[in-house]
Structure formats: structure tokens, C-alpha cells
């Protein structure tokens, strides 16, 4: 089939890909987006955690291994909207200390930019998308504009657990959520039925299908579903990319050429695509002269704390899947003491449905038969939960790498190797102990921590100041290939303990405006 050409080719129709497509097409650029999965629409988002499995990665399985294997399938997206289609809309900002870990503590890495560089982009994104919260109540919050919307409603389990924090002299505040507490820019307010995890068809939660995707379509961006990108096409030299090779649903190979190529194919598949792209000067893969493509894969540990409040209807089936309140008293990197190093953020009172990985039944995976029946009948009315998100430090050996398994087009399929640093395990251990104290102080009859889990994918294509120690500059532009931009949380050099999607949006907005401001420079490359 004949090659086609656009100003910009974007791989991946998730949060970053849609934001880039919207801004570039609105500026008059011709944009083609390739996505491996289906072309979801909001009316596909059936309220069922069974049917929501369709929104998770549905391509060739990713191998996950290491001392603490990461749940790639659960955390990934599949199709238009990407992982953000089933994300929970918990949108805290990173803290200034997250950007200067190496300088401050001699551990981990530094970002090449500071919080103040991102601050105006956080402010603008929250205005564009709609974020609900109470900036004054978030006493930990870095400087920034107030939220455009008041906080979401609180339900019983949130109020119950908050009493435990208060009894220990700790603060709580409504979680900052990219979910509308009031109608905003034509989108309706949340109705608190707790189906965020299955995708929000009413558009109260800021999934890409209701934020930047419609803007991109309006301005003529062309989205291709079931278009599995296999490798980058080298330009006239190793410092130039000419486009992207992909395979369509019929198994036919195509070449989509572009002046600028943007990889927004997820933290796992961005490095996979780069490592599969070989040619003169790309012997270790494209954009990989540093040898760092795939390295410093990071995630957050999760300390899940459960407690029974038998005298109360905890209403755990109401609210939002993300969280109702937050506590960040232990965000300081050394604040937990002992062997722990890294930040901790509590997310209090997420909705629990009976089934699925984060559901009621999985809170006691050891139960089955009659004991499980009894537990379910009690728990759906009296269980409360909170999650402590712990920072996973950047570790070079945590990585995305290629395996001998072959996928579409003969490409090598990826493996994720992950093990938390001992100091990160220490954060989880301290969080579990602290969480039990909170639950006890709140008056929980029985409380217990779940096993160590993890969520969110970051790193693997980290940004930095030079080509020896990082893959891209602060705009996601490859140090090696001047018309190649990498997008998404894979750019983060540190993970903090904050859900990454707000920062993903802020970084993407900063980067896409840099491209537009320097278009001829990118294009000429």
C-alpha cells in the first residue's frame, strides 16, 4: 500500500496522544493517530466490572517478572482513551521535592525542570479539563491556582476513616479529582454511582473521550483503530525519523510518514517500539545511544488497609473509584523514618464493588465457600478501605526489555522486570503499620492490610539534561532524534507518590506548545 504523509504522526490514542492531537490539529497541523486497540465511544462504557475488562490491554500479553512483578494488564489501556479511559481521575500535583530528589538527598534522580516550570501548565490543564477539590484544605499542596470546581461529595466510609486520622493528629482533605462536582463546559456532574473503573459514559470523569479527543476530531485529526505500530522508519540519517510502520486489523503493513513523530503508546510500548526499531546508528534501538531506553521503570506501592465498622452502613458502593479524601502528612522523603525513603500519599474511601481486583471479595482472597459468603454479606455494608501510595525509587535495573517471543510483524514482545528498592519496601511497611493505627483510631472492629501491591507505570524513557544520562530533554524530545518526541509518564525521572495523569497532562501541554513554538526547528530535523 502507498505511503501516506502527515505533519504529525502520533502513536497511541490515550491521554497524552489525544492532548497532542487536539493541540496540534487546532493549530492547523495535519495529524494522524495510530492505536493498537478499538475505537471506543462513551456508550461502550457499560457499568460492569466484568465488561470493563475490554478496556484493559488486549494485545499480545506482556511478560511481567522480577522480585515485585508489576500488573501490566490491569494498569494498561486498550483502544481509544488508553489507560485514562478506565483511570480514576485522582489528580494531585507532584510536589517540588519530587523534582530535586538527587540534589536534596543524593538518591534517585533529578528532573531537568522544577515544579515552578510545570505549575502554569497544571493551572491551565485543571481549568481546561475541570478539577474538583479544596485547595485550602490541602495544606500540603504546592502553590497553584485554586480548583475551578468545589470538592466532590463525601460518603460514610470517608467520614469514618477521617476520624481515625484526626484522632492521631493527622489532617485530611477532599481528594483533588478530575471529576466534575458541577456541570462544567457542557459536561454533567458526577452522580456518585462508583462505576469510574468501568469508564464514565456520562463524561463527568475526565477521560480522553470527553476531553481532548472530541477537540482533535473537530479539527480534523484522523484516528486509526487496530493499527499496531511495529517500528519507526529511519529518515536520511540516524538523527531523523521518517514515520511509523504499522499493521492494520487485516494484517496488512503500512507506512505512515510524518515530519514529526510522537510516541504516546504507554510506558511499556514506547520503549518496546524504540527497541524494535533498528538501522544504521540505531543498533541498540532508536533514540537509545544512552542505552537507557526501557530503564528506570517505576511504579507506586500500594498499602491497602481494610476495616469493619459494624455499627455503620459504610456506603462503600457509593462515591468514586479514586478516593474521597487524601492525607499527605508523610510526603517528605524521610518522614516515615527507619529504612523507609520516599513519599507516601493516602487515598481514603474509594468505592468498592463486590468483584474485580480492587473489589470487596479480593480484600480477603484467602476466603472461599461459606466463609466468603458470610464475609461478602457483612463487607458490602460495613467495610471501609483506604490505599497508601508509596513512592517507588528509580532503579536502573527495573526495566522494559525485549524477549524472544514474537508479535505482530515479527517484532519482539516486551517483558517488564521490576523490584522495589529496599527503601521503597520500607515505605510500604511503614504505611501498613500506620494504616492499622488509623483504622484502630477510627474505631474499626477488625482491620488488616492487604498484600503489597502496585499501580501506575512511569519511567523507561526518562527525561534529563543530557544524552548520556537520559533519553529525552524536558520536552520529551529525543536527545538523538530531533523530530521524535516521547510522551507520557514514561518521561518521569522520579515517581513521587502522586497519581501520574495530572502531571502527564501538564508535561504534555508544555511539550506540545514547545513543538508549536519551534515547529520549523522540529520539522527541519
Amino acid at each position, binding site marked *: 500500500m502507498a505511503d501516506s504523509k502527515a505533519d504529525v504522526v502520533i502513536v497511541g490514542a490515550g491521554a497524552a496522544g489525544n492532548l497532542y492531537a487536539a493541540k496540534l490539529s487546532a493549530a492547523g497541523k495535519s495529524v494522524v493517530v495510530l492505536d493498537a486497540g478499538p475505537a471506543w465511544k462513551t456508550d461502550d462504557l*457499560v457499568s460492569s466490572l466484568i465488561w470493563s475488562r475490554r478496556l484493559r490491554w488486549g494485545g499480545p500479553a506482556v511478560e511481567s517478572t522480577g522480585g515485585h512483578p508489576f500488573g501490566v494488564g490491569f494498569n494498561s489501556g486498550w483502544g481509544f482513551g488508553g489507560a485514562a479511559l478506565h483511570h480514576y481521575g485522582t489528580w494531585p500535583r507532584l510536589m517540588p521535592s519530587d523534582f530535586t530528589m538527587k540534589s536534596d538527598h543524593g538518591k534517585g534522580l533529578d528532573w531537568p525542570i522544577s515544579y515552578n516550570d510545570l505549575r502554569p501548565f497544571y493551572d491551565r490543564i485543571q481549568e481546561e479539563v475541570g478539577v474538583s477539590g479544596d485547595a485550602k484544605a490541602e495544606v500540603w499542596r504546592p502553590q497553584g491556582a485554586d480548583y475551578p470546581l468545589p470538592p466532590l461529595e463525601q460518603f460514610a466510609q470517608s467520614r469514618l476513616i477521617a476520624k481515625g486520622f484526626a484522632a492521631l493528629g493527622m489532617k485530611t482533605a477532599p481528594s483533588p479529582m478530575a471529576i466534575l462536582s458541577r456541570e462544567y463546559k457542557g459536561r454533567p456532574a458526577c452522580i456518585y454511582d462508583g*462505576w469510574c473503573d468501568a469508564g464514565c459514559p456520562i463524561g463527568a470523569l475526565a477521560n480522553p473521550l470527553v476531553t481532548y479527543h472530541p477537540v482533535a476530531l473537530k479539527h480534523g485529526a484522523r484516528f486509526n483503530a487496530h493499527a499496531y505500530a511495529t517500528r519507526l522508519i529511519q529518515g536520511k540519517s540516524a538523527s531523523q525519523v521518517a514515520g511509523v510502520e504499522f499493521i492494520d486489523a487485516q494484517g496488512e503493513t503500512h507506512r505512515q510518514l510524518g515530519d514529526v513523530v510522537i510516541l504516546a503508546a504507554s510506558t511499556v510500548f514506547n520503549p518496546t517500539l524504540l527497541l524494535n526499531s533498528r538501522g544504521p546508528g540505531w543498533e541498540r534501538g532508536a533514540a537509545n545511544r544512552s542505552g537507557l531506553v526501557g530503564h528506570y521503570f517505576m511504579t507506586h506501592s500500594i498499602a491497602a488497609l481494610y476495616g469493619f465498622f459494624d455499627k455503620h452502613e459504610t456506603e462503600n458502593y457509593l462515591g468514586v473509584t479514586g478516593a474521597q479524601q487524601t492525607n499527605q502528612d508523610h510526603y517528605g522523603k524521610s518522614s516515615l523514618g527507619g529504612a523507609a525513603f520516599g513519599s507516601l500519599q493516602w487515598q481514603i474511601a474509594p468505592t468498592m464493588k463486590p468483584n474485580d481486583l480492587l473489589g470487596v471479595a479480593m480484600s480477603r482472597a484467602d476466603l*472461599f465457600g461459606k466463609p466468603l459468603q458470610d464475609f461478602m454479606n457483612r463487607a458490602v455494608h460495613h467495610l471501609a478501605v483506604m490505599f497508601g501510595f508509596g513512592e517507588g525509587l528509580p532503579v536502573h535495573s527495573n526495566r522494559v526489555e525485549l524477549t524472544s517471543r514474537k508479535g505482530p510483524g515479527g517484532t519482539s514482545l516486551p517483558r517488564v522486570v521490576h523490584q522495589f528498592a529496599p527503601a521503597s519496601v520500607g515505605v510500604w511497611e511503614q504505611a501498613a503499620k500506620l494504616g492499622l493505627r488509623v483504622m484502630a483510631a477510627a474505631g474499626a472492629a477488625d482491620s488488616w492490610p492487604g498484600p503489597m501491591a502496585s499501580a501506575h507505570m512511569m519511567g523507561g524513557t526518562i527525561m534529563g539534561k543530557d544524552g548520556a544520562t537520559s533519553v529525552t530533554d524536558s520536552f520529551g524530545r529525543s536527545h538523538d532524534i530531533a523530530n521524535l518526541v516521547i510522551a507520557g509518564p514514561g518521561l518521569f525521572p522520579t515517581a513521587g507518590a502522586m497519581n501520574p495523569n495530572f502531571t502527564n497532562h501538564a508535561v504534555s501541554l508544555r511539550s506540545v506548545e514547545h513543538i508549536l513554538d519551534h515547529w520549523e526547528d522540529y520539522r527541519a530535523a
Partner: protein
Amino acid sequence: MDAQGYIDQRRRTFLQSAAIGLFAFSVSGCDALMSPEQARESGADFAVLSPGLVAILDVLGDALVPGAKAAGLAHYIDANLARDAGESLLMVRYLDVTTPQAQFYMAGLAALDSHCRTKNGKPFIQQSEAEATPIIASLLKGNPAGWDSIANAPPAPLFYLAVRGDAVDIVYGTMAGFEALDIPYAGHIDPKPAY
């Protein structure tokens, strides 16, 4: 029908079934969209699982989550295994299993049976409740004796979590399950009908 026509037909069938919460089953050679519970009641054919494996799954499912057999767990798993992996609704989709999903279930069920024969000298479906309970409980702790004699058997804890998760889905994760637990379903878009 050519290959592309077959793919298109399957996709149309999937989309139709996804829209209304039903699965495609075959009864006496005729395809029909049914809930797993209806498929079980009507004796619909199994596309992937053998009668022997279905018998094990029926017993295991009910032991894990009472009511799973009547809810059509075996038909539910079988219907999903007959789909492309990218269209599967099974819990195994979350578990980063690189082997084909059908192999995961078939080898896991066979490994459970092998363990029972090794431990108690009889197949799983002949274990008494008193015998089966500690066997099932042991799965979460690692591969028990006899498990690894089955080629490509999945890790026992992973197999336990997958089948338990599927059974929880079909008993508690449906509109009927919510109603039985006395909690509101309140779907924005309901899966219809309740399966």
C-alpha cells in the same frame, strides 16, 4: 465465507453480545445469544472445555463461590476462551499470563486433578467437602504435590485467583448478584439482561 468475512461476522457477534450482555452459544448446532446461566440450563455445547474439565470446574467453582455452577461459570469461562484474547472478560486478562488463556485453564484444572490423585488417590470431583477444602486452601500457598506433572500448568496461586475471580464475577458481579447482596447496582449503562 472467506477469512475476512468470518472475522467480520465474529466481530459483529461480539459487539452485539457485548451490547446486551450475552454470549454466543450453540445448542443442537444452532447459535444463540444467551446468558451463561441460560446456556447451562439449556445444555449448550462447550466450545473449548472437555466434559471432564467442565465437571472439575463445576465442582471447583461451587466450592470457591457457592452458586457459581448454577450461574453458569463453566459456560462463562468456555465462551470467553472461545474468543480472541483481546475480547476476553476473564480475570486472567489482568494477570499477565503469556500462555494462551485456554491452556491456562485446561492445564490448571488438570493439575488440580493430578494433585488430588497424588494426595488422596482419587480425582478432584470425588473428594469429599472435608477433603476438598484443605486442597483448595493450599493452592494459594504454592504448587502442591503432583501439580507440576502437568505440562505448562500455571502457578497454583495464579490459577486459584483467576478461577475464584471468575466465580466471584458471575455470582456477585452481576445485577442479580448486587440484588442478592442488597446493594444498589445503579449502572449508568446497565449490562442487559442480568447474567
